């Protein structure tokens, strides 16, 4: 088996002149051409502008310049992050023809590091969903099994990395939207702490929980991309003034003395047995690497999704109020109607079912008479969740568990919205508390004859990314789960 190429491999080869940025790009474009029709990862491939970007990198190297730590690395971008001059649909009809007037800070920083923006990936509408089925432009298929979902909301990005269309991609994670699809697609996905990466240019869903992060082949690439994108930004007041993450430095430091807690509530008997088996194997691996592992309690786990489905929709209903058919986006074709009717028709025609459902829910929990009972109470529960994590991180350095209760489900299988919401049970609390978390491949499971990846969830304290990346990297040095690839993504033979 040939190992998948990492961003580090590509950048080193491009910088050393062993290959060129344009060659790297053409190889990926050819692969996308060959198999993305079946997968549907990309909303749009920007071949021409990507070629121009790649040429610029090659020219810089020809002039003898250092082209950056991501020289010539093609990156796919979730379609809710703004690349100046390109559409940014957020998977929604209401923004189908919207063109980003400015560039996200994360994109600016990736570009400065030599990366090449290859295209935009499909996602659930406004990042609301756990399957990428709520994308107005069509679903994404899991490269491991085309009848199954890639997870969501950043499903296109996760599937693109899993299928080898790109070495890395950007997603956003408000309740698990990077980690859950990373788990379902068998790749590494990092949700940095709230404030670690500027949200400037990320279309807001729930700003107190939204965070941009990378999908990669391994933890070392995630560390590199985090280092490139992290840092304070005066255009986002919630971006943290903090010691920068260490990147590749320190990833090889031994795990001797590292304290890992395994929350009992995350190892539920209701999980798929292969999911719990993966966690048990990982516990043994971490012990053999010198870490101490103990059982802990995270009692607020059962409150996470309920808290999230008050706070998230409340913020979403406020943020999505801007889509009124007046200043940007789609306007209903309704000549002669009054202004309020124009707002309502534009929004109802442009927004999909899940977005409408969350706007309604958020509007309701913020409305007179219900604000205290729901929104204020959820914020108090949020404090409880935050405090429990804070106390736990005095006892242990990081938490280990499964990312999701079960491997990828089938397209159309999850009909009840609440069942879908419960996919995020183990991931939402990190967003609620603002801590960091990541999913790494932890093995393969057999589900009804289909071979599907299972993810491990590592969580660390606020701005504690270095530690979870170090643990993930050491785990990947000791195991080869992250090297598994879907069996010939073009010809998946599953039920």
């Amino acid at each position: 088996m040939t190992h998948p190429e990492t961003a580090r491999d590509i950048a080193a080869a491009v910088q050393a002149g062993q290959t060129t940025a344009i060659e790297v790009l053409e190889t990926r474009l050819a692969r996308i051409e060959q198999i993305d029709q079946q997968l549907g990862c990309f909303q749009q491939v920007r071949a021409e502008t990507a070629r121009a970007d790649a040429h610029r990198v090659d020219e810089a190297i020809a002039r003898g310049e250092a082209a950056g730590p991501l020289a010539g690395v093609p990156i796919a971008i979730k379609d809710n992050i703004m690349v100046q001059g390109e559409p940014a649909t957020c998977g929604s009809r209401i923004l189908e023809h919207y063109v980003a007037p400015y560039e996200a800070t994360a994109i600016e920083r990736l570009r400065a590091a030599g990366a090449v923006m290859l295209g935009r990936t499909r996602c659930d509408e406004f990042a609301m969903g756990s399957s990428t089925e709520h994308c107005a432009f069509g679903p994404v298929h899991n490269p491991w099994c085309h009848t199954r979902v890639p997870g969501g909301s950043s499903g296109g990005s996760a599937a693109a990395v899993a299928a080898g269309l790109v070495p890395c991609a950007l997603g956003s994670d408000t309740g698990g939207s990077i980690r859950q699809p990373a788990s379902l697609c068998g790749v590494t996905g990092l949700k940095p702490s709230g404030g670690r990466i500027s949200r400037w240019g990320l279309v807001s869903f729930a700003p107190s929980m939204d965070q941009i992060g990378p999908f990669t082949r391994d933890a070392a690439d995630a560390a590199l991309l985090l280092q490139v994108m992290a840092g304070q930004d005066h255009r986002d007041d919630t971006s943290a003034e903090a010691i920068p993450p260490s990147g590749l430095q320190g990833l090889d430091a031994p795990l001797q003395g590292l304290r890992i807690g395994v929350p009992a509530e995350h190892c539920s008997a209701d999980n798929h047995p292969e999911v719990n088996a993966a966690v048990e194997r990982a516990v043994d691996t971490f012990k053999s690497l010198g870490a101490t592992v103990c059982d802990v309690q995270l009692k607020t786990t059962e409150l996470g999704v309920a808290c999230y489905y008050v706070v998230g929709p409340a913020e979403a209903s406020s943020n999505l109020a801007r889509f009124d058919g007046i200043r940007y986006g789609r306007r209903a074709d309704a000549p002669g109607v009054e202004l309020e009717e124009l707002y309502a028709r534009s929004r109802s025609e442009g927004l999909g079912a899940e977005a409408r459902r969350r706007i309604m829910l958020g509007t309701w929990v913020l409305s007179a008479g219900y604000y205290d009972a729901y929104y204020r109470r959820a914020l108090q529960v949020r404090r409880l969740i935050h405090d429990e994590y804070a106390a736990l991180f005095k006892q242990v350095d990081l938490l280990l568990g499964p990312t999701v209760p079960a491997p990828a489900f089938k397209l159309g299988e999850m009909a009840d919205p609440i069942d879908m919401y419960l996919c995020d049970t183990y991931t939402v609390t990190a967003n609620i508390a603002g801590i960091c978390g990541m999913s790494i491949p932890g093995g393969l499971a057999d589900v009804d004859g289909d071979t599907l990846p299972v993810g491990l969830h590592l969580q660390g304290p606020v701005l504690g990314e270095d530690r979870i990346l170090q643990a993930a990297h050491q785990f990947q040095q000791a195991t080869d789960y992250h090297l598994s690839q879907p069996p010939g993504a073009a010809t998946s033979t599953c039920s």
Partner: protein
Amino acid sequence: MTDSAPEKPQLNEQQVRHVARLARLSLSEDELTAIAADLDAVVRFVDRLAKVDVQGLEPMASPHGHSSRLHPDEPIAPLSQETVIGAAPEHQGDYVAVPKVLDQGADA
């Protein structure tokens, strides 16, 4: 301000209609029925928050412990007028075009 448990929701269609108006969404009768059922299910689910003892807990609107910093006093290029106006679905010259609002009564 009260920490007492919320009343069991009785989300009837009339309330859903009211929320839809607040949210500026126009829903068909079928959608209204469907969304009322969905909302009621979600509301019942989040009702578990009502059983939590939250006495004395300070509401946490955001975990970001940092805000309201001073920016460096440096001019930055604003978006051009052309870019902003160009993003509007309908415009006339340098203006965003909207339906007439002044002669439609106070609620418009």
